[in-house]
């Protein structure tokens, strides 16, 4: 079970500034269990967005959005609606958000923060994609996580050690920031990387603060 919390509506709306048509992706796995991205929450989000004057082009609920292949398959039925949208709002964990970003060349907005993997990893098992930092930055990095994929976890990358797409730490490690820049270039949103990002709140991350969900029963 991956524990998620929905981002404040204010933050979500700031992501959608200037966009009109949004496609909502929910997840019937952990996010439904956490009541952050199941059917009910997706419909709730649709209502809230429409009240704010946005057009919701459609909703797709994936059984496990973290399963990249399944997500790709589920999206086929919604292809025209997705193509017609300015962006996708994804209500699930950081892994699911990245799975969505990897199957569509569209702007993908995270609707949730991933606060804990809760003892079990997601379905997309080929490597580390979420570090439970609790303050999801995928909005800003085009759906590829610099916290999980940059050795230095920097927010203004790449550092001077990125050569030929590889991280200086190991020739087997792709530079996360090269991937981010490639993707943002592909979707025409490199302009996201112009402002100075304030220091991150590491207090909400799994390793940066006190246990946020201490075990109650030993």
């Amino acid at each position, binding site marked *: 079970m991956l524990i998620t919390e929905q981002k404040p509506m204010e933050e979500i709306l700031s992501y959608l500034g200037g966009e009109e048509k949004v496609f909502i992706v929910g997840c019937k796995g952990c996010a439904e269990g956490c009541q952050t991205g199941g059917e009910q929450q997706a419909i709730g989000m649709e209502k809230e967005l429409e009240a704010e004057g946005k057009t919701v082009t459609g909703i797709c609920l994936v059984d496990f959005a973290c399963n990249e292949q399944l997500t790709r398959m589920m999206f086929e039925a919604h292809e025209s609606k997705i193509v017609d949208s300015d962006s996708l709002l994804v209500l699930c964990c950081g892994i699911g958000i990245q799975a969505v970003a990897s199957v569509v060349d569209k702007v993908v907005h995270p609707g949730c923060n991933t606060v804990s993997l809760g003892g079990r990893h997601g379905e997309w098992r080929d490597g580390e994609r979420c570090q439970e930092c609790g303050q999801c930055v995928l909005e800003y990095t085009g759906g590829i996580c610099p916290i999980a994929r940059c050795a230095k976890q920097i*927010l203004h990358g790449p550092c*001077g*050690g*990125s*050569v030929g797409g590889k991280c*200086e730490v190991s020739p087997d490690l792709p530079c996360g920031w090269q991937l981010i820049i490639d993707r943002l270039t592909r979707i025409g949103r490199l302009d996201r990387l*112009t402002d*100075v990002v304030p*220091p991150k709140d590491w207090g909400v991350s799994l390793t940066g603060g006190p246990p946020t969900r201490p075990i109650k029963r030993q």
Partner: protein
Amino acid sequence: MKAGTNLEKVLESKRFAVTAEVGPPKGAGTSGVLKKGEKLKEFTDAINVTDNQTAIVRMCSLAGCTLLKRVGVDPVLQMVVRDRNRIAIQSDILGAVALGIGNILCLSGDYQSFGNHPTAKGVYDLDSVQLINTLKKMRDERKFICGEAIAGELPLFIGAVENPFADPFEYRVFRLARKVKAGVDFIQTQAVFDVARFEKWMKLIKDHGLEEQVHILAGIIPVKSAGMARYMRDYVSGVTVPDEVVTRLEQATDVKEEGLKISLEIIEQIMEIPQVHGIHIMAVGWEEIVPVIVEQAGLLPRPEV
């Protein structure tokens, strides 16, 4: 003037600046840093003190800078975000200013796995751009990151590094623009061997209108052996050494003389680029060559400002 350091005065008076670098010892002895400072002071405008470079434990930069001040050198305190969180960083900055240090160079730092404590926990609470922005906020708004007020002035001349030889090449200037936006005053670059690529990078800086907003000092590493050149080419991340340089050193009868010649040629070409405001000589373990380079490059005497 932001800090009124010698380096700032030289750059602001549009004189071509020369900086060098000193690595502190793996011990608590003071004579090494003091001697290097004495030897280099007439030939430079400021001297950097590295901060546990290549993640190998050495005397801290703050102590090294304080020693350099004793012999009349304007020190540049290098500060990496690898080993300090925002509490330690801001505290060290207050301490540095209290001890009369005004130039701070912001870096992320060589990754801990390269050093002699590869199992250390990396901090990276802030990144280098956020560090720059923190110093600017501390200086201009007299505020800590949290927003609380700092008592008194905090004169700082803020530096950072950039590597024109890292990838993705076209994006690197956008990244430099973010450092400028964050508040950087001067940049010292990674060592230049590939002058053509460096020129291309400088042109992008001009095209982005950044040349008026930040002082660029080009990095120079004098190479004293073919082995060192090969090592840097093959193993030092972020450094590009063209094969031609390696071949020249391999075939030279007097390899040190050839190394000096290569450095002087690079400096000559760099000085023809009007947007470059100085050089930063990183003579790792070959500090005695610095006076020779500065003299033969025609950069003496250093300006009195």
